[in-house]
């Protein structure tokens, strides 16, 4: 394999892995911030326990998200140096701002939150977790601002053979970003919420700490419902935007070789023959593609063959059709997972409102446990569609992926790093799942006894009786 292919594999693998943890962190910290706010407002210890219990899972997850994020920042320069030279003037700024504005905020206030339960007042401690939450959202904003430039380059001029920024405001009001950002953030809230509902469902099935987990479930399922509906609504806007800005990606998403009829039907499933550029066994719903693309029941959508000849005229000879099957199916997997989540959370909210959350709904609770995986599947397939659908470009219309790779790095070096990173990531994944299961099995009241002895062991505590820590 050549350096380009290896570098792509590494970037895809490390980014997908990183993005298991990021949305979960964003979603969990938001849920925890709400729980801690309820603790401060209502003064009930139970909410504090909730924040602490879900906080444990959050911290394990956050640690993995942080360390895998370091790699993300480095590998633009390491593996894609030609790309970095070409876009650094535009692309570097949001990355630097992300570090300054988000990474510092997250890392400092997470330290204050973890170690500050006894040192800070309730309110200040609560503000700390909100600042972490704000930091994670800011982080998403700036990295998505950078990604949006790759999807739809704006606010730049080509000068000295590279893209140079000439309008910062355009960069952060990029139409792509204004949709991509809420879509990603809502999906992240959804990811966190469905972890909480899934784990709660598991504990309710086991009849453990039912009061605690009913309440957790109720809080999270509302967040889950609102965000999963929100994701879908923004997603619909994105599709309409995609038709205008990246019609090739849209056509590939629909496996639309020829320009559609007017009104355009939506292909639910098909056997795609990329060699002969045709589909067989299409199962279609009339009008729906027109609706997806234009929010009305008329209008044709341009097909890949027509776009290919357009692009050849515009950009010169080349193959401008992305991997169609991957783009087509990843979109469908995303939509199916998202729709299922809306239905599940609707029913969950109904049960919670009727105070019927208990193990009588065995099948539903089992479904909710399984539903933990759905946001991850949706997130991953959504990004695969977004990034694969943009190929062969790395910056749409400006630079191809193959041109962006580091000329000085050898295939052997990349192979070595792929093996090293994959190995360490595999270990991280196993350890993390193991620790998650442990924390969940122990439950929220596990550390009651040890916690007490710790607290009274603090000599700065008024009634403290110093004695050594047993662990």
């Amino acid at each position: 394999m050549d350096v380009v292919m290896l570098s792509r594999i590494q970037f895809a693998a490390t980014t997908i892995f990183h993005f298991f943890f990021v949305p979960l962190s964003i979603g969990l910290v938001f849920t925890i911030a709400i729980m801690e706010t309820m603790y401060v407002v209502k003064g009930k210890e139970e909410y504090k326990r909730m924040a602490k219990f879900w906080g444990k899972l959050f911290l394990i997850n956050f640690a993995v998200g942080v360390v895998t994020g370091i790699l993300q920042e480095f590998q633009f320069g390491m593996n894609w140096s030609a790309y970095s030279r070409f876009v650094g003037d535009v692309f570097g700024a949001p990355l630097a701002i992300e570090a300054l504005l988000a990474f510092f905020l997250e890392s400092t206030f997470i330290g204050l939150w973890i170690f500050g339960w006894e040192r800070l007042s309730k309110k200040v401690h609560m503000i700390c977790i909100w600042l972490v939450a704000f930091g994670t959202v800011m982080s998403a904003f700036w990295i998505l601002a950078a990604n949006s430039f790759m999807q739809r380059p704006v606010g730049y001029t080509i000068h000295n053979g590279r893209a140079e920024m000439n309008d910062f405001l355009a960069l952060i009001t990029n139409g792509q970003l204004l949709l991509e950002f809420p879509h990603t953030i809502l999906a992240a809230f959804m990811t966190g919420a469905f972890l909480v509902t899934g784990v709660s469902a598991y504990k309710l099935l086991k009849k453990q700490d039912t009061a605690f987990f009913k309440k957790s479930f109720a809080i999270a399922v509302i967040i889950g419902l609102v965000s999963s509906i929100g994701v879908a609504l923004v997603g619909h806007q994105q599709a309409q935007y995609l038709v205008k800005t990246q019609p090739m990606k849209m056509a590939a998403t629909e496996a639309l070789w020829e320009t559609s009829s007017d009104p355009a039907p939506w292909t639910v499933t098909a056997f795609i023959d990329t060699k002969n550029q045709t589909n067989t066994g299409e199962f279609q719903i009339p009008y729906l593609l027109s609706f997806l693309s234009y929010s009305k029941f008329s209008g044709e959508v341009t097909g890949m063959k027509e776009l290919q000849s357009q692009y050849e005229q515009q950009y010169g000879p080349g193959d401008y059709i992305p991997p169609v099957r991957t783009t087509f199916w990843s979109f469908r997997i995303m939509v199916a997972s998202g729709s299922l989540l809306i239905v599940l959370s609707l029913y969950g909210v109904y049960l919670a409102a009727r105070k019927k959350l208990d193990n009588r709904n065995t099948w539903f609770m089992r479904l909710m446990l399984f539903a933990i995986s759905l946001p991850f599947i949706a997130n991953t397939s959504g990004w695969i569609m977004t990034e694969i659908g943009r190929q062969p470009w790395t910056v749409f219309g400006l630079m191809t992926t193959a041109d962006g790779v580091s000329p000085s790095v050898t295939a052997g070096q990349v192979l070595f790093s792929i093996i090293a990173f994959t190995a360490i990531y595999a270990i991280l994944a196993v350890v993390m799942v193991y620790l998650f299961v442990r924390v969940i099995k122990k439950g929220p009241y596990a550390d009651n006894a040890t916690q007490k002895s710790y607290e009274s062991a603090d000599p700065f505590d008024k009634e403290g009786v110093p004695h050594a820590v047993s662990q």
Partner: protein
Amino acid sequence: MLSLNELWFVLVAVLFIGFFFLEGFDFGVGMSTGILAKNDTERRVLINSIGPFWDANEVWLLTAGGAMFAAFPNWYATLFSGFYTPLVLLLLALIGRGVAFEFRGKVQTAAWKKTWDVVIFTGSLLPPLLLGVVFADLIRGLPIDQAMEMKAGFFGDIVNLYSVVGGLTMVVLCLVHGLMFTTLRVTGDLQARARRLAEMLLAPLAVLIAAFGAMTYFETDIFEGRAFLLTVMGVVIAAAYVLAAVFIAKRRDGWAFGMTGAVIALTIAFFFTGLFPNVMISSIDQAFNLTLTNAASGPYSLKVMTIVALSLLPFVLGYQIWSYFVFHKRVHEQSHLEY
């Protein structure tokens, strides 16, 4: 007045200085969990003494990288692709170390803890070693061609006697700095032993610094044209080192920590002063050097970044200092140990 290019060069330097000063001590504390701590509780005390800080300290490195990307894309691209293999190792170390702090205390078996102890020790030792090597290579010069591509051999261009001495110096420097941090953050026997170990390391450290200084004179061209300035910096570094030794002997731990920090900060400042006005030196031809001008972003981008950075930095510094204030109490065996 500084030009924007110069200002960003200074900012990148400041971010690296901040990184080595701050993360330097938590690298040192990480290493001392392997050589200073006698038992599990002591290891936990050490880890908890940097618990609230290490993550934010590491962000200084990320921000330095981000600032290089934004302000000097060619510097970022050449350096990160050119030092591919050392950076892979650095990433593995930082990844392992970061999760090890979080994971170590989660399971109470000896094997589990021992595993993560090894990761913490190695993960704290490798980064200063690798970064020391990289910085030494930066002022020594690297095979950078006309297209700004650096095609360096791992042995010879990257790993050579000079850069290894540079790396080892950084390791011992961070270790001593970390031990002095420990004297400020713990009590009793552990504190006394940290001071003693720091004292014992002073002589080897002096040898390393002197050797590195002398080799720098012969191995690099950075003294050309600014021999006076760099010599003065060298003398100040030596003075700070002597003061550190004096303060350690007098048990003035706070001052001693300040001085080990000063040695680190000045050493990094020395590297950057030596580089200026280049950012990377080509060993093939001077004309291929990456400079403040040919490696930089355009004026518009630099202006935007300047406004953003200067308005955010005061807040960042403010809340970081506040977090050190919140956790100013010493950590000891009876404390609530989170990790």
